[in-house]
């Protein structure tokens, strides 16, 4: 938009402000005010049940890094990053591959597409419960099958590596539909001309994918990168709660300070609303999470934003 008033849709500053007001109102009431409130809360000893509110300065933050609560927090901090990266990398590459395949002109393509998108329509609670039934180590379908075929019964929910893999798998699977919808739309928007030109130049399918399709898909990828990361940080809560309750603790000596699938979001919840409801402490954890997301967003927009190619 230029400042040229002839082109401007909105004639005056006040009109713009008036039209923005509802959005700003909603943002302030439901986002900025609660966020500000919780930042303030992190400087208080605040218990949800007792309604206490004693100013204790940086003690909540100190407890995050020094003392008996620190190891669990630090472990869950790194786990959040690991789970986030795994979800984004595996999720995006898998959905890119699947939507590339589903975009082909084959018989029943519409049915494939529908089936691929469908898990997204399921609530995390339902998805978690289904996974829990399937992966019950003694009576679940998965282990019945594996025992019959290979006579092994993996401990899906209390072996740290398997539990992490299972949660990652469930997280990726649950969000696959969302990514595929966007990639399918992006594929269908790509004009055939550059591809035809590449064909004429004698480029193979590999080259075409990496040098033409991938750059043309970069705006979508960029968008999905951020939505997936925030999904992994914030929305995996439901799945984790039902599937593992944040467990299992890692093997003795390594990562055994808290459950291996306890992400920061899960920890904020269980410290703030679980147990004795230490809201101040949870608010301090939330503040760190906020900073973490901010840092991610900054680097993402700085490094990726430059390379994204917007067509037309």
């Amino acid at each position, binding site marked *: 938009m230029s400042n040229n008033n002839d082109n401007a*849709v*909105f004639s005056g500053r006040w*009109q713009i402000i*008036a*039209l923005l*007001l*509802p959005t700003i*109102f909603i943002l302030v009431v439901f986002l900025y005010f609660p966020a500000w409130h919780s930042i303030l809360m992190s400087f208080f*000893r605040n*218990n*949800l*049940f*007792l*309604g*206490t509110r*004693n100013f204790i300065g940086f003690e909540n933050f100190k*407890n995050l890094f020094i*003392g*008996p*609560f620190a190891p*669990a927090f630090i472990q869950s901090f790194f786990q959040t990053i690991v789970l986030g990266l795994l979800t984004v990398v595996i999720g995006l590459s898998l959905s890119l591959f699947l939507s590339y395949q589903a975009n082909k002109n084959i018989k029943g393509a519409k049915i494939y597409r529908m089936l691929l998108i469908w898990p997204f329509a399921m609530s995390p609670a339902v998805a978690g419960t289904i996974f*829990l039934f399937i992966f*019950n*180590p*003694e*009576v679940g379908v998965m282990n019945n099958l594996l025992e019959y075929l290979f006579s092994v019964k993996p*401990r*899906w*929910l*209390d*072996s740290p590596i398997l*539990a992490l893999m299972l949660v990652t798998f469930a997280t990726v699977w649950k969000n696959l539909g969302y990514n595929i919808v966007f990639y399918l739309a992006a594929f269908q928007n790509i004009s055939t001309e550059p591809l035809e030109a590449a064909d004429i130049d004698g480029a193979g399918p590999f080259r075409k994918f990496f040098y033409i399709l991938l750059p043309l898909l970069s705006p979508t990828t960029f968008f999905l990168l951020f939505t997936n990361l925030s999904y992994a940080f914030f929305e995996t809560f439901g799945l984790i709660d039902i*599937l*593992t*309750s*944040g*467990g*299992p*603790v890692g*093997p*003795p*000596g390594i990562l*055994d300070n*808290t*459950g291996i699938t306890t992400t920061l979001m899960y920890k904020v919840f*269980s410290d703030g*609303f*679980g*147990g*004795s*409801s*230490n809201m101040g*402490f949870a608010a301090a954890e939330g503040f760190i999470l906020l900073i973490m997301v901010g840092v991610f967003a900054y680097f993402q927009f700085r490094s990726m934003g430059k390379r994204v190619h917007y067509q037309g």
Partner: protein
Amino acid sequence: MKKLIYSLMFLLTLSTFAFAGGSQESKSSEDTKVEAPKEVKEIYCWHAFSDAPRSKWIQDRADEFNATQSDFKVVVEAKGSYRDTLQAAVLADKQGAAPHIVQVFEVGSQLAFDTGIFKPIGEIGSFDTDDYIQPVLNYYTLNGKVNSIPFNSSSPILYINKDKLVEAGYDADYVPETFSDVIELLETAKSKGVEGAKFSFCLHGWYFEQWMSEQGAEMVNNGNGRDARATETMLNSPAAMKIGEFVSELASKDLYTYTGKFEDWDGNDAIFAEGKALLHMTSTADLGNIAAACEGKFDMGVGFIPIPDGSERNGTVIGGASVWIAKNHPADELEAARDFVLYMTNTENMVSWHKLTGYYPVRNSSVEALKEEGWFDTDAKQLVAFNQLLSTKINKATAGAVAGTLLDNRTIIEEALQKIIQGADVKASLDEAKEISDAKLDEYNANF
């Protein structure tokens, strides 16, 4: 044209502000409620049962109570989980709209007490509590006063797959008495090739609490938090070590199984009901469900929970919930609320409550009535649960711990036990658990 559209949109936007409060309708209806002639005062009763049978039972009792008099009307509302119910009550009290009656779970007793929104029911007029089963009432007596009336109470019992027991060469009525009996039974069964020679209780801090109580050991200091506010947990006491070592032995000899998830009641019940475990332990309240699930698959027996070797059976702690009365109400409403609570837990009602759910009837007279009726002859398994409860000794260990962080404690214990299951050192794990748990307790106590 464009201008017209935009100004229309602008008007529309402005008009939304008029409704942005969102409370136009509800406000007016509330107003009329308040201004209506106050012949009938409403008594709000909040509970935490989301299932139809139990919430309907409470609703039915309220309807009956409402029919007996015309001054008060009990309004029953389900408020989600126990935690949600208590949190909602605290928030409602802040806004001056506290319910009268709130169902609070047993480990939340200290939290509920500390919120300061409740009045000990023992202070509302005088009434007789002698008929309530002593070990149950004990839990809810704080500072010598009956704080709340027990409502839904249960404790854990041992479930046995008798088919596997016989297969292992044991008598069908055998019940392992101690930890070493359990290990011996399971090892024998394993050596005889019995499939699922395992103990399948879910990984829950509740069992730790039970085993501490059975040894007469307290969970927290200051008389289990009943003489004064608890300041220290006993998670690495000798009694606790015995429990840790038992779990460690079970796991290292591959005699324990669970779903792997913390507090996974249903998943572990399924393991037992599908015949994948010889021994199981869960609440008496699940007796009906598990019996039904095992029906036709194998012969199921029940018994007292096994206890550590060399300790005298001291008894279990009560689990479940009690009902509390919120204080910020006029005296007549408090009395009406109390009357409803007493009505709900009267002799006949506790009989029907027990039959419906498997929770203990909390009155001695109800137990007598059930005996006379021959209820226990038809369902002898229920009697095991009763005998375990009635033989419980009255002391501070079986009265149960009170502390603000009992819920945190459970999580910390579960993590420690899981470490032990994975092969960590028992002493080190429990020491660490105590350190974290004490820090949590300090943090909580610093609120006062």
